[in-house]
């Protein structure tokens, strides 16, 4: 399968008065054409920083190394004017809380037109509006929405408007950051099905779906990447990650999720003791060391960062417990 996005040793730090926060610290992954790539992790793991940085490196976010190759083109250090052209057309994002970020004093119509005009000066206002209405209808919104203000819409409707706007120019890669988190379950399902349909109709080729909710990823993602404290810990096919997690963190994370049919009185689940490390001054070795029940080689785990290796075909793990198998294969 062709790769749409290839990210190598990519680092994004936050510059603060106290020093650098290493929010994304040397991540490696790729996204195939025509796939939904799920990114999961807990708050502070760097998943949103990663998503946002691919679109716009806004201070205090700072590029600190590595490569991002989109469709054969290195985009990590492009001048702002060139990157501006790429955004929205080649790579687009539905930011977290986007549905609450729409101007309350502008009609939806004006928001749409202004945004598209910013990127495509040739398109006439009528064309833009016609296209938007067509897409709105596809997701069950009436064309009256164009003349409404965002505060007149319900949460589920706002999310649909935002999704239509972000994909209006058919970007190759769409980054969807926590788009289901603030929604009711029925609207969650709707948003995910909508994204699926957009992919089928080729409005977008690939989606990076960022969420803390692995059970939502299970519904939509082809592959899942798990992040912890700025590092990638595991990548694999959705089914494998969910049913046969290998990294100790992934294992604990998945076993801590209450599933339907599991009750406290019969089957007490446990969380993961401890807290993620401070990324201002991260530990030298594996970042999960403090909370890890495995610590296969304590000395090594504490002092050396485990590299992300392809442990089995298509299955990548960063843990010293899984490097031996790789040696044999290699």
């Amino acid at each position, binding site marked *: 399968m062709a790769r749409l996005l290839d990210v190598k040793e990519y680092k994004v730090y936050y510059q603060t008065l106290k020093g650098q926060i290493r929010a994304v610290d040397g991540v490696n992954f790729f996204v195939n054409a025509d796939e939904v790539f799920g990114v999961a992790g807990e708050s502070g793991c760097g998943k949103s920083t990663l998503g946002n940085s691919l679109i716009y490196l806004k201070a205090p976010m700072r590029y600190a190394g590595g490569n991002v190759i989109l469709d054969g083109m290195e985009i990590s250090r492009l001048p702002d004017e060139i990157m501006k052209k790429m955004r929205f057309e080649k790579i687009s994002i539905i930011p977290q809380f986007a549905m609450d970020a729409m101007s309350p004093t502008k009609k939806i119509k004006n928001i749409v037109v202004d945004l598209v005009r910013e990127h495509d000066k040739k398109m006439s206002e009528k064309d833009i509006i016609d296209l938007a209405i067509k897409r709105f209808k596809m997701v*069950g919104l009436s064309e009256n929405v164009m003349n409404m203000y965002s505060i007149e819409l319900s949460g589920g409707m706002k999310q649909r408007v935002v999704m239509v706007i972000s994909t209006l120019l058919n970007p190759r890669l769409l980054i969807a950051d926590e788009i289901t988190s603030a929604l009711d379950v029925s609207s969650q399902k709707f948003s995910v099905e909508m994204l699926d349909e957009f992919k089928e109709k080729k409005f977008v080729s690939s989606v990076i779906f960022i969420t803390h909710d692995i059970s939502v990823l299970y519904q939509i993602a082809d592959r899942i990447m798990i992040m912890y404290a700025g590092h990638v810990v595991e990548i694999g096919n959705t089914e494998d990650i969910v049913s046969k997690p290998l990294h100790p963190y992934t294992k*604990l994370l*998945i076993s*801590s*999720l*209450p599933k339907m049919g599991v009750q406290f009185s019969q089957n*007490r*689940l446990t969380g*993961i003791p401890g807290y993620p490390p401070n990324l201002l001054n991260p530990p030298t070795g594996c970042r999960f060391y403090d909370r890890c029940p495995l610590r296969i080689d304590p000395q090594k785990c504490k002092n050396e960062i485990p590299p992300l290796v392809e442990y089995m075909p298509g299955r990548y793990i960063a843990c010293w417990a899984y490097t031996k198998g790789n040696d044999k294969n290699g």
Partner: protein
Amino acid sequence: MDELVKVQNLTKIFKSGLVGGYFTTAVDDVSFDIHRSEIISLVGESGSGKTTVGRLILRLLKLSTGKIIYEGVDISTLKGRKLRDYYKYVQGVFQDPFASFNPIFKVDRVFDLLFDSYLKDKTDKKHELIVESLEKVGLNSLDILGKYPHQMSGGQLQRILIARTLLLDTKLLIADELISMLDASTRVDVLNLLGDLRDKEKMSVLFITHDLSLGYYISDTTMIMYRGNIVEFGKTKLVFDNPLHPYTRMLLSAVPEIGRKWKKSELEMKRGEIPAGGCPYFDRCPLAMDVCRKKPNLKELEKDHKVACYAAEVMTGDSIQIGKGHNN
């Protein structure tokens, strides 16, 4: 189990607009009991009125009609000293832990305020009591006291707030989306804490949530609310394993679950008119019939399982007959 709180025909109507205005019925004639040492989850989507119910019991809002009876006393009209005493027994913890603390004070302040107003007679043992209550929620006081809220995780802050209720003689905790902002790896521990408080401290919890799997995990009893009405109510296992109301069924089918992929559905987002005095789910219901223009009451269709739906009444009636047929 005996009742701690009896909620009877609770209704809350909000008035909006300055002149004339319009009315929104957020809670519509809701009745239920909370027993001692029971965790009861109140599940619903946004706008269902679940938070309003919690706030009414906490007296943060004034009810329009109905009664809330705590230990035999109607608390809806309590004032002054008596209301203050009520808060010794009924406490709330809310969704955003960072909003519950004043960021410029150390976390100790939530305990200080408590001792200043409620526990004046115990100030000499203050420190020991705080340490003890923190231990009960699984925190080491050395990690907590003297620190500022921003130095804590959300899970720690929620536990501190729960520890605070333990210093009082709290019999009922209203937990409104208590863990929805916490990470997966810490949220289950806070849930377990609620279970332990029920079992060891005999506390009752009204667990308000939009997350069905969390409700299933922790609660004894489940209430499903839709547009201000309780549509299904019963023992948690019965409600989840044998959902009878079409709304509950729709909710359960939309819950994202590991190991079960969503069925592709007709995108069920239509909203229409609800006939005045009709079933609140009328416009979205696939089973809507003519009789649904009159609102159904909650009826016990099997032991410990009540449903407000005519179609469910017919279905359960049928299923019993089919069952009989098999036996013959």
